[in-house]
């Protein structure tokens, strides 16, 4: 028996800033694997030039979501719903048309630059490959543009580095080269999946600064997938929290940090070691993310939630909670959850 039948009836209203029409709209996307939903009714949108973060523990479906947008998720996943990019549903797009979107209009930066760069081609050749796939360019022109792209991402002496192989560059420089490839065709949206996780803090600061700067300069929207809430706070305008394949909260970054509405969001924020909380016990979230085979029927976070009550046994959908905010928790109104400030 559903205790809150009305919850299921309220349609999700995609949240967009009227001034900025959505560039990408993800509508009720489900991805199933062997009958179980890895992604379940995922809804969010990214406006042109907006920087949206996706956070959550490993196994929450962040990467699958990112890959699904570009049609790169494993074919074992059965995708339903709509991913609308500038009026076209990417899930219906034929493979050939999708190739014109991938790399040209939406591009991706991965976590491990050493794994994603091809070791037998120079950095320049890899940038030229992307450019010449999408534009009619002579080799020489493509090479010049590749050097420009390397200069843009702050690689010193780009005219020489363009002929380097990936192994000749340091980790930070490789990640810059990846960004250069992603930016080469001036896409409207960049999906960055943990782009700084493998880097030192000092280099991470350089890379996040660079991404923000380039996004502002070219008006490129950014979908930033990360588990690091500090990185999200410094790069993004808003963020969505994902848990077990569902979006549980969608909020502006400052609101989220000061007053998270979902118990999972609050748990993530409180478990961060902070310099101001030295030598005290950190509140951790007990248990772990359920695997596909063990997804709870109701609220997926309920088994780990210390605030769960009877209504939480029902499935929760993402509902508006105040202005420009959404949450998937039936108790959000009565709970005053701590954020980073308390």
């Amino acid at each position, binding site marked *: 028996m559903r205790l809150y039948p009305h919850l299921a009836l309220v349609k999700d209203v995609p949240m967009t800033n009227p001034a900025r029409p959505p560039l990408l709209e993800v509508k009720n996307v489900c991805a199933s694997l062997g009958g179980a939903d890895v992604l379940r009714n995922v809804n969010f949108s990214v406006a042109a030039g907006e920087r949206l973060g996706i956070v959550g*523990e*490993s196994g929450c479906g962040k990467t699958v979501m990112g890959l699904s947008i570009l049609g790169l998720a494993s074919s074992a996943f059965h995708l339903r719903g709509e991913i609308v990019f500038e009026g076209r549903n990417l899930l219906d797009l034929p493979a050939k048309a999708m190739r014109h979107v991938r790399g040209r209009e939406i591009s991706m930066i991965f976590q491990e630059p050493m794994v994603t760069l091809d070791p037998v081609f120079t950095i320049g050749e890899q940038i030229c490959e992307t450019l010449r796939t999408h534009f009619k360019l002579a080799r020489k022109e493509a090479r010049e543009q590749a050097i420009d792209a390397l200069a843009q991402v702050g690689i010193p002496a780009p005219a020489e580095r363009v002929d380097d192989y990936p192994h000749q560059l*340091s*980790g*930070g*420089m490789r990640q810059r080269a990846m960004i250069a490839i992603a930016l080469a065709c001036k896409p409207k949206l960049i999906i960055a999946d943990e782009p700084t996780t493998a880097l*030192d*803090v*000092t*280099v*991470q*600061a*350089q890379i*996040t*600064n660079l991404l923000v700067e380039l996004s502002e300069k070219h008006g490129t929207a950014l979908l930033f997938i990360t*588990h*690091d*809430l*500090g*990185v*999200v*706070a*410094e790069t993004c305008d808003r963020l969505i929290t994902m848990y077990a394949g569902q979006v549980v909260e969608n909020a502006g*970054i*400052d609101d989220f*940090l*000061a007053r998270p509405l979902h118990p999972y969001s609050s*748990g*993530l*924020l409180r*478990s*961060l*070691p*902070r*310099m101001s*909380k*030295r*030598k005290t*016990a*950190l*509140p*951790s*979230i*007990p248990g*772990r993310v359920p695997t596909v085979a063990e997804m709870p029927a109701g609220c997926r976070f309920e088994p780990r939630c210390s605030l769960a009550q009877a209504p939480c046994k029902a499935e929760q959908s993402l509902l508006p909670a105040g202005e420009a905010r959404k949450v998937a928790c039936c108790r959000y109104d009565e709970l005053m959850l701590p954020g*980073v*400030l308390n």
Partner: protein
Amino acid sequence: MIAAPLVSVDKLKIHFPTKRRGRTVKAVDGVTFDIEPSTTLSIIGESGSGKSTLGRALVCLTRPTEGTVLHDGTDPFRLGRSALRRHRRDYQLIFQDPHAALDPRMTILESVREPLDIVGEIPKADRNAQAHGLLERVGIAPALHERYPHQLSGGQKQRVNIARALTTRPKVLVCDEVVAALDVSVQAGILNLFADIQRDFGLTYVFITHDLAVAAHISDEIAVMYLGQFVEKGLAEAVQETPLHPYTRALLSAEPEPLPSAMRENNRIVLKGEVPSPITPPAACRFHTRCPRAQARCSKDAPDFRQLRPGRWVACHFAEEMLEEAGEKAQAGPAERAGQRQACE
């Protein structure tokens, strides 16, 4: 009363030969420090700074090229084979990748019992009982004790590694990036566990980490390492609130803070470039090539690693100046204290 140091490191150098003859990687290049019993020292720095090599030397896994590591006054590298084996029980290491550190063909109970089997001093039933007890102590339910590593989550596996390191009742645990591979929610639980077992077993920790928030959370003391040398060392609060080396300031400033925009610092110090090669480190002060405060003298003479205040060590020509600036700021009031991090700009 001052307790005698449990670990005493003196002018330690560890160099590795490279393929090209005559050139060496100076992984650790002249480090001197002591660790007091039952305290936690964190060693922070970028990759390639020599943190892990230093950690391995502390548990006798890497032989010093020069200098000494003393454990309770004895030099373990002068012990005979069997004496060294017995000695190693007291100095254990936990690694970053919890999965790679466990044998996939042993149940976790067997993995935890293995050190006791090797020691072989007590009957098997007692060894089993001890292993069960330790696994429960680190929060692994008895139903999981007969499982294999691949059946556990990352956090559970790291708990098993902790239990295994505890079987020989060590005095010192060197933890090399032990929470780096874990999610924050899981990381919090593991950090709490480390704090609990330190209290119960009176352990001394050396935490090697690149995560400043983790270091600040658990440590009594923090040492900052750059290209094989310590550039700053002191009490955790002191290093964090008034860093006296430009490199420490840059590291603290680069740390992304999950704070609303109004509370975040906008003038971050972003270091240019990356760590130079430890084969040919810059002459004089090794940080001068990236230092926002560098002057002509920084490339001419190397600053001494000197004690500015009791327990506060810094290797920078301008440390005294920075200490004065910090003092003025502190008097000016707490509101301005937040601006200190920018003082070196």
